[in-house]
């Protein structure tokens, strides 16, 4: 990643976010985990995880590979049930048995590669699972023109300007596809938006596009959970940061009270990174 590009995006995202970090909204958190743990047989995937996610903020969950990020997402999105602890949505304890339950409570998850159907047109993807109908549902006729118009305007609201919503979504770039998936979740009233590594497969520019839409969703009052292993990306948009390592919560930070270096340090396990940096510099020298 070129340093210059990175700074450019950082400056841009900073500008879009407003110079001041919005303080976490007062009141009930949209999502709350209280001492949640998950084991698969004898393997402890997560232990004593407590976090809360407020509406209108971006909560970043950071961790290296194997830190337990995927397990955490799966609990939040209703794929797995926690084996211990309490999971609260809008202050009420919940037990989801499928992602549909989570969706019904306004928790939408955008999975990295599994968000859209590449061969289908943009508007078909946009309305997938939420098709506008007249009459009996599965056989109801879709108002195609209306759907295309709504897709276009909903995407415009998020700042995505696509001329032809009839083109296959596979023809869009990876960043744009993620952006459409985010816009879709926001449009259909997601109160909590969980993003599973939305930038990990993308280049610098593309990542910038996605980060911009994360902030657009936040502006609309959505509680965004941004899962990533990239502290640079997290630092640019996050209001609160949780760091996972080996299934445990090792640190949490609030925007404005943490530097990027701290995040990187905490993520890589401080001392480890220092010795690595030393090793690398000795090779370079």
């Amino acid at each position: 990643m070129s340093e210059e590009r990175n700074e450019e995006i950082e400056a841009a995202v900073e500008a879009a976010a407003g110079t001041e970090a919005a303080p976490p909204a007062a009141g009930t958190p949209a999502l709350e985990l209280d001492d949640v743990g998950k084991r698969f047989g004898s393997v402890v995937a997560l232990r004593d995880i407590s976090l809360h996610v407020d509406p209108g903020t971006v909560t970043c969950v950071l961790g290296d590979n194997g830190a337990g990020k995927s397990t955490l997402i799966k609990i939040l999105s209703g794929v797995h049930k926690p084996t211990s602890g309490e999971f609260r949505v809008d202050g009420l304890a919940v037990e989801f048995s499928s992602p549909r339950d989570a969706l019904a409570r306004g928790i939408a998850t955008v999975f990295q590669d599994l968000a859209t159907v590449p061969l289908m047109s943009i508007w078909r993807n946009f309305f997938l699972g939420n098709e506008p109908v007249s009459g009996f549902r599965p056989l109801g006729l879709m108002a195609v023109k209306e759907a295309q118009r709504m897709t276009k305007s909903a995407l415009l609201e998020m700042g995505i300007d696509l001329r032809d919503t009839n083109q296959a979504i596979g023809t869009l770039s990876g960043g744009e596809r993620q952006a459409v998936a985010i816009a879709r979740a926001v449009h259909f009233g997601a109160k909590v938006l969980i993003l599973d590594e939305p930038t990990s497969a993308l280049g610098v520019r593309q990542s910038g596009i996605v980060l911009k839409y994360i902030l657009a969703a936040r502006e609309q009052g959505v509680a965004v959970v941004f899962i990533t292993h990239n502290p640079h990306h997290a630092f640019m948009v996050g209001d609160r940061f949780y760091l996972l390592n080996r299934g445990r919560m090792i640190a949490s930070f609030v925007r404005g009270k943490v530097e990027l270096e701290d995040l990187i340090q905490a993520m890589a396990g401080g001392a480890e990174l220092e010795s690595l940096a030393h090793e690398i510099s000795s090779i370079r020298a």
Partner: protein
Amino acid sequence: MTNFETSTSNIAVDERVTRTPWYIRVMRRPELGALLGAIVIFIMFTVADTTGNFATLDGAAGWTDFAAPVGIVSVFVALLMIGGEFDLSSGVMVGTSGLFAGLLITELGMNVWLAILCTLVMAAVVGFVNGILVVRTNLPSFIVTLATFFVLKGVNLAATKAVTGTVRVSGIDQGDGYDSARAIFASTFKVAGADFQITVIWWIIITAIATVLLTRTVFGNWIFASGGDANAARNAGVPVNRTKIILFMLTSLSASLVGVMFLLRLHGMQAGQGVGQEFYYIIAAAVGGCLLTGGAGSAVGASIGALIMGFAAVGIPYALWDQDWVSTFLGVILFAAVLINLTISRRAQGGKK
């Protein structure tokens, strides 16, 4: 803010399609390849025709007679393929249904209409079993329906022999309601002196219904999504399994309808009827632009694919070519059409994928 807007606006310009010309939109149609192929083949057989009948209404009655029963099933085989699954038992199902209805009429003395109703219910059950086996076991539908194919093929022969002592069910014209059923499913109608089969009307109506179902209804959206990416579809809340099971049932029902049509038209049914037809259906669907991996295709395309087969079946003897070459001809058409479809769709998608 301003800073950021300028930095993204040039990204947006070089990455999106600035305009979509009409010919690109036409090229995106999945049935384009089949349509062009049909026109070329029609001209070819018109030129090669030695009887002077190919390009007349009588000729049309001939090739639609062949194409209609193939087309009726192909349309649903196409929907199933778009939904990401295969049905190799669709051909034998034609025979099973004809024999089942025939035995109900001749052995139990059942009213023809009631027998048809029972047969459709039986076909729906077979389709449901195919579907549930595919979604529950996660085995490829190729294997599951190949098994169904062979099971039914054996049942057709064994059950027919056991009940009638021959390999044929006959005498259904004695059943109550035979004449009225035949009028609906197996009669002919005249267009300017040419005798067209009523199956042609069924074929056109079914193609139209399937096209609306696929392109305009919510269920159609689910078909595309289930075949395009089942996981993404599930994540978006699409009931993928239910969609696939319904598609298997529709395919089986369409084969059953054709079985009933043959039974009424031929006054009986051979135990081997329909076997081998499944490949015609799949060829028609593939020629018509259905992606074998699912997620793209059209019902109209499959019907055009069936029409091309009708051209070949009638055009080859009219051209006084050896009839034995029909299959070879269809094989070449299949390969050429799929290759053309692939090239066109790649172009239309701007070289991606």
